[in-house]
């Protein structure tokens, strides 16, 4: 537990020392949103929903790709001597989830500012966005580890990840479109399903990461 805290602290410290990537992400969100703002004004709720989630998907790939790709071979070897695979992976997953929580809040804010606000039940939608951000970051963190080991770039993450993420994305879109109507309620069993899927992903990552980690 202590090691996990230290590793997480290391991630945060690295992020604060190399702020270009953080500001790069912010700029990525800003420019994408601006392009969307220029392309369409005031989209209908269904289109807003689709754009929002697809946008979040691409933000996630860019945010998470760096986490494993930045580690050089030598540095991975150094971590290998210091920590256990599970601690290392969990620290990465936690950090990426935190990052995605922040990024999804920012993109939600910008979406409502620039493209209008179709939400009729704001609180459940915000909750879904945060949950969705975590779900996306968990899946793509593990795929980033695979891509890094295969010495490939973020493009292969998209190929590997898009088919896997579709079911969760469809669930999230279904649930969030319910919050655009005053009468529908968000089904709690579906939310529980999403949380269960997230747990499954974390479990599979913890089980499988040691095989990637050894060289």
């Amino acid at each position, binding site marked *: 537990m202590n090691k996990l805290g230290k590793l997480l602290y290391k991630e945060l410290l690295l992020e604060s020392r190399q702020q270009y990537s953080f500001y790069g992400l912010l700029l990525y969100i800003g420019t994408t949103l601006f392009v969307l703002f220029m392309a369409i004004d005031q989209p209908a709720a269904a289109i807003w929903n689709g754009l929002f989630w697809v946008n979040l998907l691409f933000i996630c790939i860019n945010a998470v790709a760096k986490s494993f790709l930045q580690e050089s071979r030598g540095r991975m070897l150094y971590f290998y001597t210091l920590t256990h695979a599970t601690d290392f992976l969990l620290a990465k997953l936690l950090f990426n989830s935190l990052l995605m929580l922040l990024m999804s809040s920012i993109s939600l804010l910008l979406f409502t500012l620039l493209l209008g606000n179709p939400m009729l039940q704001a609180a459940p939608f915000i909750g879904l966005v945060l949950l969705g951000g975590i779900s996306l970051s968990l*899946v793509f963190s*593990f795929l980033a580890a*695979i891509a890094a*080991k*295969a*010495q*490939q770039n973020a493009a*292969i993450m998209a*190929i*590997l990840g*898009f*088919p*896997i993420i*579709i*079911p*969760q994305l*469809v*669930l999230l879109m*279904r649930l969030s479109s319910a919050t655009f109507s005053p009468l529908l309620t968000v089904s709690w069993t*579906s939310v529980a*399903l999403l949380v269960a*899927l997230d747990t*499954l*992903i974390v479990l*599979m*990552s913890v089980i*499988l990461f040691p*095989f*990637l980690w050894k060289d």
Partner: protein
Amino acid sequence: MRNNWWKIWSAVLLVYTFVAGLLGPVPSLPLLQETIRNLYFHVCMWFAMMILFTVSVVYSIRYLRTLDLKYDIYARHFAVTAIVMGLLGYTTGAIWAAYTWADPNKPLINSFSTIARDPKLIGAAIALLVYFAYLILRDAVTDIDKRARISAVYNIFAYAILFPAIWILPRILPSLHPGNDGNPALDVKNDISASMRLVFYPAIIGWTLLGVWIATLKIRIQLLADKKLMS
């Protein structure tokens, strides 16, 4: 001969499937009519695909436990054969849908986007995309041991998420396909008449055995090629 009994069974069951499937009695239902015979071919392709993907994952797990490259070759060729079965499942399904689901007043191509939205088709498409990505990932890594390890990890990870998803999707999307209310394919007990089940079950076994047969042949060729490479 002792090890080939299942190949004989495969051939016998498939001959039975074709003879009984094309000549046997089927209930006459509105809209479906004689196209119902496609059940023995279309549905069996998906069964074979799922079973072969599962076999592929089992070999990936065995590879990670033993690090024996033989199992990596097994996993790859079972996955490739499963993909072929999946593509055949799509082809037979498309022919079936053209006669039953498509709007007869419009050109066939106009119905495509509506039909493709069906959750069962989406689930199958996801499965195929995952395994196409698996093949791309394999080719992206040049080191043999590393390739085997990384692709085995992806195979297991993707399978573990894919299968709950295929069971979830039909519950949240509307569908024309038989077997609603969360069933991923169809309800065997209620959707299929007793006389058809007599052909349907052997057909599944026959097609699956044929898939295994094809995969084992490909594995043997690969193992021989690798042996030549090493000597």
